[in-house]
């Protein structure tokens, strides 16, 4: 418990530094966002002035950031340049990205570990070679190629999945994008599981367990796999954050109205409040998930718990 509290306190400075950095980066983008919004048409002084005032664009960086944080703690995350409250915007979008990330995550976890175990137990066999070749391929091909190919073949030509959108809800609409998004992490999970399992199968305690006459299933499940999963769980924790961020491309291809799309648009429009709002929540999720992972170590390996 003290450990958990300690970790949470550590998160506070991380939170402020990251949000300030993000705010400063958006602030530093070249060009005047209001003028850019107007396009080719001239804006009268009065209009320019009103808009700059509304979004505090005349103030120096530190003041803008201060105003933003102050409002944020009172639950007001500001509004976008089109006048939509950021909190409302995020509400609608978070659930989409969360559902996508969870789908991808489950896919990585189940299929990744499954493939890793099969490959690790039959080292050098056909299954192992296939998994190695397949994962190398997936890591090498960029995610948008996987995305479009999957959309055209599995979605359009074979009609196995919906091509795009969230009309059919979870899980149907999220299966294909989840698999595409998770494919990259899946390759890592499978390889990590495989390597770690092979190493552990050679360890003394496995030989002891075998010598005790335990059944193979129990040796692998209770002893080898449990220890082999520690690096995998670490990866899965870190990767959950990556999934949230990696959603930018996948959400674009599959037209899922999540935060990935929003971040992309908002960076282009230089909408500081939106970018910071999203990144803040991302940072918090990242910190929380990694805290959970740390606590999970103890469950998997009692030695860590006692230490």
């Amino acid at each position, binding site marked *: 418990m003290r450990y958990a509290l300690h970790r949470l306190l550590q998160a506070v400075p991380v939170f402020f530094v990251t949000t300030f950095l993000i705010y400063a980066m958006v602030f530093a*983008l*070249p*060009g*005047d*966002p209001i*003028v*850019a*919004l*107007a*396009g*080719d*048409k*001239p*804006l*009268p*002084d*009065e*209009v320019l*002035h*009103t*808009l700059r005032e*509304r979004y505090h664009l*005349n103030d120096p960086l530190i003041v803008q950031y201060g105003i933003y944080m102050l409002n944020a703690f009172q639950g007001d995350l500001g509004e976008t*340049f*089109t*006048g*939509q409250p950021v909190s409302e*915007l995020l509400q*609608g*979008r978070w659930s989409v990205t969360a559902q996508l990330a969870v789908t991808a995550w489950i896919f990585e976890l189940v299929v990744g570990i499954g493939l890793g175990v099969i490959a690790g137990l039959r080292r050098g066999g056909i299954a192992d070679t296939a998994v190695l070749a397949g994962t190398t391929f997936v890591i090498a091909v960029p995610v*948008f*190629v996987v995305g*479009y*190919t999957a*959309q*055209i*073949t599995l*979605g*359009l*030509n074979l*009609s196995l999945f*919906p*091509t*795009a*959108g*969230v*009309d059919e809800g979870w899980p149907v609409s999220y299966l294909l994008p989840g698999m595409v998004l998770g494919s990259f992490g899946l390759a890592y999970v499978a390889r990590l599981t495989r390597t770690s399992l092979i190493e552990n199968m050679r360890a003394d305690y496995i030989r002891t367990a075998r010598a005790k006459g335990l059944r193979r299933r129990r040796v692998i499940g209770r002893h080898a796999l449990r220890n082999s999963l520690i690096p995998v769980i670490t990866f899965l924790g870190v990767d959950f954050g990556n999934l949230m961020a990696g959603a*930018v*491309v996948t*959400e*674009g*291809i*599959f*037209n899922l*109205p999540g935060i990935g*799309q*929003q971040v*992309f648009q908002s960076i*282009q429009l*230089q909408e500081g409040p939106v970018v910071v709002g999203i990144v803040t929540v991302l940072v918090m999720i990242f910190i929380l998930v990694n805290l959970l992972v740390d606590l999970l170590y103890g469950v998997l390996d009692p030695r860590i718990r006692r230490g």
Partner: protein
Amino acid sequence: MTVWTRTRGSAVLLATMLAVNACGGSPAPSAGGQQGAKEFSVGLTEPDHLTPGNTSSSYSITVLQALFDLPVFIDSKGQPQMRAAESVTSDDQKVWTIKLKAGQKFHNGEPVTAESFADAWNAAAYGPNAWTNNYYFENVEGYDKLNPEAPEGSEEAPKPTTDKLSGLKVVDATTLEVTLTAPFSQFPITLAYTGFAPMPKAAFADLKAYDVKPIGNGPFALDGEWARNRQIKIKKFDGYAGPRPAKSASVNFKIYESRDTAYVDLRAGKVDLIQTIPPASTSEAKRLLGDRFVATPSGTMDYLGLPVYDKRFQSPDLRKAISMAIDRQAIVDAVFNGAFKPMGSLVAPLVPGYRENACGEACVFDKAKAKALFDKAGGFSGTMNLYFSNADPSYEQWMTAVANQLKDNLGIADIQFRKIPAADYLSTLRAHKQDGPYRNNWVMDYPSPQNYLQPMWGAGNRMGWESKEFDDLLTQANSAASMEASIPLYQKAEDLALSEMPMIPLWNWQDQSGYSDKISGVQIDAYSTNLDTITVK
């Protein structure tokens, strides 16, 4: 309108740039059955606003054209025709009388009166509201009172003393009198722009709510609220008394982030109409859709602007030589799949008064003549910088082609690219920081040569080109007795701008639409999607 559209387009940059249209596949035979009867869906990019005075995004306009009846509409030949108005007349082109058709209603039952228009226009012109279409009311008398300029040395503009344009006079329930600051023969055509839509009294109680649930006077009414980033549903308005009742029960605008995804959904039968088939998929779409593929000429043009204030670009002969050294057709074929049309005129083909190759030989690719003219003008010294923004990868592609042609055909050895961040590009041009040819794009607001010539070649233009004769011709044309009478004067002005060539016309854009076999009666033209004409099979 111009850059907004482009900026929005660039939001799909990733997908467009990386599109892999590998597999051909077969076209989906029919649209999905999950939609209700007599409803069809339209692929759309997220609009910015739905208050007519506060948006110039083409995506918003697609929706607003279904929700609102403007005083005037543009027919497929580019001529203004009456819609909400009975007539728009003037004796001196300065004081205009708009007579409205009687008996029209808003979706909430309020009658549409002259006051509905006056209220909406005043709100748009009122500076502190900061609405996008503010600028369109610039030539109405009293505009400067609503938009006071900041005094010398101060950023802050004083608050306006009034919120009503003195040039708008409500004569009676169906008569509105508009007084302009100067004669303007093109005024009726501008009334087809959605920025001139009427608003009911109910709107002003809560403008924020109105922006997501606009109440209009058109054949369709909003059904529920605008579900941001997902969909906008509209349904047939039963109390509609105007000239174009809806032929379908409802329309669902499905919002897409990427053009490529929308196109895939059209092929999968999940959306019935899209207006943005990606150029990379042109030939495939033609093959799959057959006559359900529609190419519509648009008013959008690309130009190559030249910094006339830089002394290396001061000779008109040199500027013409650059124009003649560019093989427009080759670039259009290579970069745009042949979808765009090479141009030898400053206005788009659909604009009344357009003349094919008004430019003459100065816009015809001829390597030998170009080089001879180039040498006669004294050649070019130093580095030639080419300016464009990073909003879309195609800009760099065609600029590279232009650079290669100038190198090969004129022998300009040192050409560099200046790729400017999109948000900075226009302020760079306005401040005259460019010292070389630059990309200039224009999206038409209304089909009049004036809409091209005045903003781009008129006083204070980006090229730094000055011609009193040109400005005088525009003033004459603007105050001509009728639209027909104004055309020859605009053409004279165009000839003058072409003979001096401060900006080189390149090509005219085309919009590519496609629709499913579930709908018929699709009549998309350059001015409107005409959703009211579409029937569901």
